């Protein structure tokens, strides 16, 4: 019977920043899918709950050399230093309200367990965690559109992107019924992925070589010789991760042809980028 957790998945995504248009579909799809509340004034982005947030990055150059790129940022689902599941946020939660699912690689958040100490938010450098500063309230009647698959949150707890875990659950229900061992790649896709009109987001199991995301990212499971905390570095020279050098080992990868965009993904001391930029995973794969 010991089979349920035999197969380990590592769900992750790669977002093509050259395709992303900054349209915001992913943000709204996420909010509608996950019962995210809204309030009268959402213009202060530091207290506005958007599990998926689209950042606007500029290359800092003067007119007309200015360039802009949009960067969607869901929870990065860090697997922590060395990929052992000690995400920055998971290990600090005093009440076990968040954990790292080793079967999926997804970082959970249990709203009914959370008591709102916000330590996880402090520990997350991506600002992917949000606090319910206010009572979530819907205009009269609008609570009728809330989905039963995601618990609505209450005031005073932290929430964040779950990689639409409920969709994984629903896909598995179907697979169980049909007595299939595995779910298909397309059976479990996050709400942001399916919504993206540009097809910029590719989601799947990074442990499954057949999945598109793995084909694009080509993760190197060996520790990075330059920094043993880093695992899963992409072998694709156009792919990077946010703050990879901290050893958070995120499972959200980004793809861009533009060098300045790739450089913006992390911090580099002066001149360091030039020596580091061509370093991609252990085995260099030639790339057309």
């Amino acid at each position, binding site marked *: 019977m010991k089979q349920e957790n035999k197969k380990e998945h590592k769900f992750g995504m790669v977002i*093509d920043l*050259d*395709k992303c*248009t*900054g*349209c*915001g*579909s992913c*943000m*709204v*799809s996420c*909010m*509608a899918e996950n*019962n995210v509340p*809204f*309030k*009268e*004034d*959402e*213009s*202060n982005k530091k207290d*506005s709950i*958007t599990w998926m947030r*689209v950042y*606007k990055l*500029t290359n800092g*150059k*003067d*007119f*007309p050399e*200015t*360039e*802009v*790129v*949009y960067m969607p940022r869901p929870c990065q689902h860090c697997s922590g230093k060395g990929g052992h599941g000690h995400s920055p946020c998971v290990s600090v939660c005093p009440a076990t309200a968040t954990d790292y699912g080793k079967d999926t690689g997804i970082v959970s958040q249990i709203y*009914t*367990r959370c008591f709102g100490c916000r330590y996880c938010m402090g520990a997350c450098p991506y600002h992917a965690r949000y606090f319910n500063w206010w*009572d*979530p309230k*819907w*205009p*009269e*009647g*609008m*609570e009728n*559109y*809330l*989905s*039963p698959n995601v*618990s*609505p949150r*209450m*005031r005073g707890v932290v929430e964040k992107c779950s990689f639409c875990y409920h969709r994984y659950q629903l896909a598995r229900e179907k697979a169980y019924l049909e007595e299939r061992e595995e779910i298909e790649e397309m059976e479990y896709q996050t*709400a942001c992925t*399916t*919504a*993206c*009109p*540009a*097809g910029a987001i590719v989601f799947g199991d990074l442990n499954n070589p057949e999945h598109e995301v793995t084909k694009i990212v080509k993760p190197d499971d060996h520790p990075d010789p330059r920094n043993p905390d880093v695992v899963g570095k992409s072998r694709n020279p156009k792919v990077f991760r946010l703050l990879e050098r901290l050893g958070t080992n995120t499972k959200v990868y980004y793809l861009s042809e533009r060098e300045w965009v790739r450089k913006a993904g992390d911090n580099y001391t002066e001149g360091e980028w030039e020596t580091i930029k061509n370093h991609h995973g252990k085995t260099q794969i030639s790339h057309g």
Partner: protein
Amino acid sequence: MKVDRRSFLGLGIGAVAGIAVSPVGIKLTDDSSILTQTTKLWPWALDHPPLDGAIVYENSVCSLCPGGCGISVRKIDDRPVKIEGLADYPINDGGACLHGMSGLQYLYDPARIKKPMIKKGDSFEEISWEDAISLVAGKLSDVRKSGSPEKLACITDKEHGSVSGLLQHLLKAFGSPNFYTMPNLESYLETVAQQIHGNGKTLSFDLENSDFVLSFGAGIIEGWGSPVACFKANATRKQRHAKLYQVEARLSNTAANANKWIPAVPGTEADLALAMCAVILNENLFNSAATANMYAGFSKFVSVVQTEYAPAKIAKITGIKEDDIIQIAREFATAKMPVAVFGKGKGDGAQSLKEMAAVHALNCLVGNVNKKGGVFVQDKAQYLEFPAVKMDGIASKGAAKARTGQYIGQMLDAVNASAEPVVEALIVYNANPCYSLHDTRRVKQAMSKIPFVVSISSFLDETAMEADIILPCHTFLERFEDVPSSGGFSKTVVGLTKPVVNPIFDTKNAGDCIIEIGKALDQAVAANFEWENYEDCLQAVTSSIWDSLSEEGYAVVSDTIPSGSPGVDVSFLAQNPATVQAQGDFNLTLIPVDNIRLLSGAIAASAFAIKTVSDTVLTKKETVVEINPLTVKGLKDKDLATLTTPMGSANVRVHLNEGIRPGVIGMVEGLGHTFDNKYVSNKGVNVNDLIGQVLEPGTGLDAAFGIKAKISRA
């Protein structure tokens, strides 16, 4: 027995110990733990968790914008919970925009009108549907009886579709030529096609196949045309190695995503396009087979372009280097499948015919007309078959009269200019002219001068508030409607919007409102409304495609490249029409900015959409304007400033941004609503309050691309 202190102590300790070894402690602790997690006690949670049930999906078509995307509505039993793009739908194939996905918020929008309402003094009172319809019919009958049926006018969003068709049917039967639409991309395409290729034609662009898109401000990923289709076309560009060059004064999302940003001075796009024509002609880069088709005005066009639009001269006007103009023109002309696209922003704002024709002239010169990856010239989609209108004498007389104005702007001007009411009654459906047209004060003034305004609307928006009677209609999730694709999409697809939920309030389908009004009018008019209801009508008028519509949910009317090379008449451009200038004499130019996350047409953005709007666009209750740091000395980022145009002034925040041409101020469209929805309204200013109408000489189009302005620290 002597009860002393020790006995009490024993009693106490015994009681505590007894309770301690009983299950009370552990049970109560556990229950308290659960209690604090439930929604039972606290005001900070929902009363009831969302009910679970069977998941069902229903397909429909979104009609929030002209895009016409297929949607899949996920329901839990009877309750819709999520809208997503419909896979394999010919327009959007699975993708969806943020507005469509927030569609459920419109169902329960706080500004929804729940019952028919009549204006009493300054406020509205609810009335019954029977009273409302008979009241409207009574007023309209009076207009008709007065012998001037042409004094009934009608404003809606578009010319196509059966509801618009019903309105036109009603006007014709009634006897009025005064049918108006809000400015929209489809009608601009038809205007240009008519000017250059002749009557009954329209244009579309094969963006998904073109290898070189030269866009003159068309916000291809800002909501231009059929937004999701454009997103998809743009997304495949990377694989197809296709290029996108964007001419635009600011670094819009489209410009940012493009291979090249050409930041021309706003309002000089026509000059730039004609200069490129000059380069193509000078360097013999044109397609001679194509130019052979140019039957009218070609030689004059050539000489005008070569003398008046020499790249060196135009470089000074547009701010684009001569070399760049030449280089881009060469790249365009030598590309395999080039296409030049017009229609600034979402394409539904003010446009100049000169500019649109000049851009299209580029297409005609390189000859990529009716070819893959180019521009398609085809007949207007005619899938509706309304029965011929039976007109009585009054109707024939009225319908033969001249329209009150050529376009909606002139009609409103005529109303304002005349002491006598030139329009006695007005029906507005799916349009918000009091918000969306330039110089909204003028529009509201005209509304108040029209004695009887009927609004058929789901929301109490700016225009509905000006109405005398409001007939509340279903939202797109509660109604049937045919939705023709439009806005330059290369295929012609008609989708069927279907109700996915029972009406939440006491509303009707807009089509039923019109049919019921028609039936309630005098017999001569009523005879034209023999359908039982709108569904019956819809089925009848779409009979040619109904089977496909009802079975597939959509019908593809045409998806092939039109054959033949249409004739080209460039005589309009050959006259070298004047370029429209911005109104006023301040030093800076204010331009409206279209943002995909906002809506500026008949429907306002939802709470979710507003939530996604950047803080560099909206901060608290203030619109944030973009200006280049070089534009005004002494202004700092986030400063509060006063922006003044000839139309008035407004307080705004400043966002210093290198992504905009110096001398230009960018202000977003879609803010500054004033109706009753705190999540959406009373945020920022409506840019249309600050920009006035400027009519293009000769064409009568409102072509105000912006307005002169000044800005200073508040």
